[in-house]
C-alpha cells in the first residue's frame, strides 16, 4: 500500500495528490506513472506533476468513473494499492532557445513538469493554457514561476475566450516564431498546433493521448504511427516529434471505449447515490 500524503482540491473538477512512492522520486521530466487505487481498480496513467522527497505529485482531472472514484474514495482512505513508474521516456531536456508551452486542461501537469526542466536548462519560456471551462484552469502560479509570459483562455469564455490554435497563432503574430513548441492535453488541439507548426516551419514535441493497459509494451492498445512506423505511447512515448505523428490514426482510436466509459460512470454515480441514501437513514 502506498500512502497518499496530500490531497488538495483545485477546482470541483481537479485535485492534486502526493503519493509516497520511493521509486518515483527520480522520475525524469515528462514521465508518467500508473496507479490503481485497489488491485481491482482500473489502471490509470497519470503524468507526473513534480517529484518530491518521498514520491511524486499528480494532477487528477475528474473525467470518468475511475478518476471520480479516486476523488471520492481517497477522502475515505488515503491509500493506493499500486503505483507503477516512472514510465515512458523522459522529455529530451536541452537548450532549445525560445520555447512555447501549450497546454489543454490536465495537460498543464506534464507541461509544468517539462517546462520547469527546460527553464532550468536556460530556455526562455512562454506559456499558454486553455481550459474547456474555468474549472479546467489551475496551477497557473506554478506555470508563471518559470515562464516569462503566461496567457490563459477558456473555450466557453468564462476566462478570456480562446482556443489553443487561435492562441498559438496570436502568439506568433505578437512575439514571433518560437524555436520549439511543446504541447499536451488533447490530441485534436495538438494536431491543429502541429498543422500550424508545419506551415510555419516550427519544431514541435507533443504528448500523445492513448488508451493504456499494461503500459509495459505488451498489449499494443497505445499504438500509434510515427513516420509510418508503429510506436507505443507507453514505452516509446509519450512525447513524439509532432510533425511525424499520424494524428488521424490517433484521433480515430480515441473513442474506442466511449460507450463503456459512459456506462461505467453512470453505474458508479448511481452507486454513490445509493450510498448517500444509506447514510441518510
Amino acid at each position, binding site marked *: 500500500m502506498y500512502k497518499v500524503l496530500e490531497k488538495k482540491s483545485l477546482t470541483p473538477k481537479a485535485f492534486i495528490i502526493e503519493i509516497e512512492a520511493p521509486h518515483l522520486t527520480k522520475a525524469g521530466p515528462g514521465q508518467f506513472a500508473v496507479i490503481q487505487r485497489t488491485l481491482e481498480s482500473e489502471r490509470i496513467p497519470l503524468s507526473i506533476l513534480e517529484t518530491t522527497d518521498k514520491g511524486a505529485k499528480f494532477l487528477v482531472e475528474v473525467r470518468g468513473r475511475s478518476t471520480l472514484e479516486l476523488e471520492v474514495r481517497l477522502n475515505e482512505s488515503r491509500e493506493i494499492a499500486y*503505483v507503477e513508474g516512472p514510465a*515512458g521516456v523522459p522529455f529530451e531536456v536541452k537548450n532549445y532557445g525560445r520555447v512555447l508551452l501549450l497546454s489543454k486542461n490536465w495537460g498543464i501537469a506534464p507541461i509544468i513538469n517539462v517546462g520547469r526542466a527546460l527553464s532550468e536548462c536556460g530556455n526562455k519560456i512562454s506559456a499558454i493554457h486553455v481550459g474547456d471551462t474555468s474549472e479546467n484552469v489551475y496551477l497557473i502560479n506554478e506555470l508563471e514561476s518559470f515562464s516569462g509570459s503566461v496567457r490563459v483562455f477558456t473555450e466557453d469564455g468564462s476566462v478570456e475566450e480562446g482556443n489553443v490554435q487561435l492562441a498559438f497563432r496570436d502568439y506568433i503574430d505578437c512575439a514571433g516564431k518560437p524555436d520549439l513548441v511543446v504541447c499536451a492535453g488533447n490530441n485534436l488541439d495538438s494536431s491543429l498546433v502541429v498543422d500550424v507548426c508545419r506551415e510555419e516551419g516550427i519544431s514541435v514535441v507533443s504528448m500523445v493521448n492513448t488508451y493504456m493497459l499494461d503500459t*509495459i509494451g505488451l498489449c*499494443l492498445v497505445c499504438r500509434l504511427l510515427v513516420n509510418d512506423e*508503429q510506436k507505443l505511447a507507453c514505452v516509446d512515448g509519450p512525447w513524439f516529434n509532432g510533425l511525424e505523428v499520424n494524428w488521424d490514426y490517433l484521433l480515430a482510436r480515441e473513442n474506442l471505449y466511449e460507450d463503456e466509459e459512459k456506462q*461505467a460512470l453512470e453505474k458508479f454515480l448511481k452507486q454513490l447515490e445509493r450510498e448517500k441514501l444509506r447514510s441518510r437513514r
Partner: protein
Amino acid sequence: MAKKIRYLDRNKEPMLEPSERVKGFREYALGFSVGLALDEANRCLFCKDADQRCIKGCPINVDIPGFIKKITEGDLVGAYKKLIETDIFPSICGRVCPQERQCEGSCILYYDTVRERKAKGLPVSIGALEKFVGDFIRVSGIEIEEEASPPTGKKVAVIGAGPSGLGCAYDLAKKGHEVHVYEALHKAGGVMRYGIPPARLDREIIDYEINRLERLGVKFFYGYVVGRTISLEELREKYDAVYISVGAGRGKLGLKGDHLKGVFSAIEVLTRVNLMEAYRFPEAPTPVDLGNKVAIIGGGFTAVDCAITSLRLGLETHVVYRRTRETSSARQEEWDHLMEEGAQIHWLTQPVEVLGNEKGEVLGLKCIKMELGEPDESGRPRPVPVPGSEHVIECDSVIFAIGQQANPIAYQGLLEITKWGTVKVNDRYETSMEGVFAGGDAINGGDTVVRSLAHGREAAKFIDEYLKTKKWSFTGGS
C-alpha cells in the same frame, strides 16, 4: 499373478457440459476424484526405464512413476513431495502443459519411445494425476514444510514474476539466498495471470503458489518496470546476481487493415478479460468491446485462450489458422472443447486483409483457402493458396494471436541480443553482462509455461554456482 496391462481403460477427467462451460469463467475440467485418481494411478506400469520414456518427455524431468507409485500407496503427501522435487507447481503444470506431446506422448502404453513405435493403448493420464496431487494438498490444508537453507547473505534480483522468474526465485530462496522479484504488473504470475483464462487455471492456484514463495522469504516488488523504474545496471550494482525473466509478451499484428479500431492483439484482449476481469464490466471498471462476432487469427495456445475467452463473453467465435489441426501447437483436446462450445474453426485458411469502413470499424476478415504442399524448412507441409478461394468471414473484431515478440525494455542496449531481439545466453544462462542471467521466453521467444519453469530452475543452479565461485564463462559469439 502378473499384472494385467490396462491399455485402453484410461479414466477421463470429469468436465462441465459445453452449455455450462460457456456461461462463465469457472474451471471446466473438474479433476479426478480420489477414486478415479487411485484407479488411474494403478494403470501405470512403473517402467524401470522411465527415464527413457515419460521422464524424458517431461521438460522438467518429473519422476513420474515415483509420484504415481506414492498415489497407489495412498501417500499423497509423499506424492506431492516427490513432484515438487522437480515440478514446484504441480497444480499449474497439470493444467497447462501439453502432456500429449510430452510425458503422456511418451507413455509406454501409447508409444514405445525406446523402440520408436506406436503401442496399442492410451497413455496414463499423467497430467490429471499431477493436478490431482497438487489440488489435493492445496485444499486439504496440509502445510508442507519447505525449508530454506541458512541465509548465505547473497542477494539476487529476479526481473519478472512469470513461470521462469518464480521457478528461479523458489530455488534460490531454498538455497538460502535473499530473493527480490521485480514485477511490472500489480499481480504475480506473468502469462499465467494475464494470459491463461481462469477457465483453464483458477486464479486461487496462482495466489497459493505465490504465497508459498513468500513463505520461503521471497519478496515481491510490484509496479517496477526494469528499464524505466530502475535500470539493469542499478540492479546489478545492488545485487550479487540478476535473473532476467521478462518473457516475450509483446503482441504482434501485421496484416493489411490492422490499423482498424476493432483489431486487437491477443495480449490486450486476454489482459483485459483475465487480469482486469472485464467480463464483470461494469462491476469491474475495465471494459472490453469485441462486438458480437470475433475472428481470431492463429492456431496455438494463445489462439485457443482467446477463443475460450470470447466464447465465454457470449460471442460468435471464429478461429482462422493457415495450417491444419495436426500441426497446431495447442492441445488436441482443446480444439474439441472449443468446437463443442460452438467455435467455428477454419483450418487451412489464410487471412489476407481486415476489411473495414470509413469509421474505422471492422466489417470482416478476408481469407483465402490453403492446401498442403511440399514440406517447408520446419518439416511441416507448406500451406499454399488455392486460387480463387477468397472469401470473407464477417466479424466485428479481429484478434491477432500469431505469436509474440521480445519485449526488450529491460535490457535494450545493455546486453547482446539475438536477431529475434531475445537475450543471448550461453548454456549456463549467462548473458553478456557478468552476474546477469536470463531464461524463459526472454531467451527462447515463446514457449510453454513448463519450459520457462525449467529454465528458471536450471538457471538458479548456475546462479548459485556463480555466487559461490564468481566464475563467468560467457564469451559471446554463437
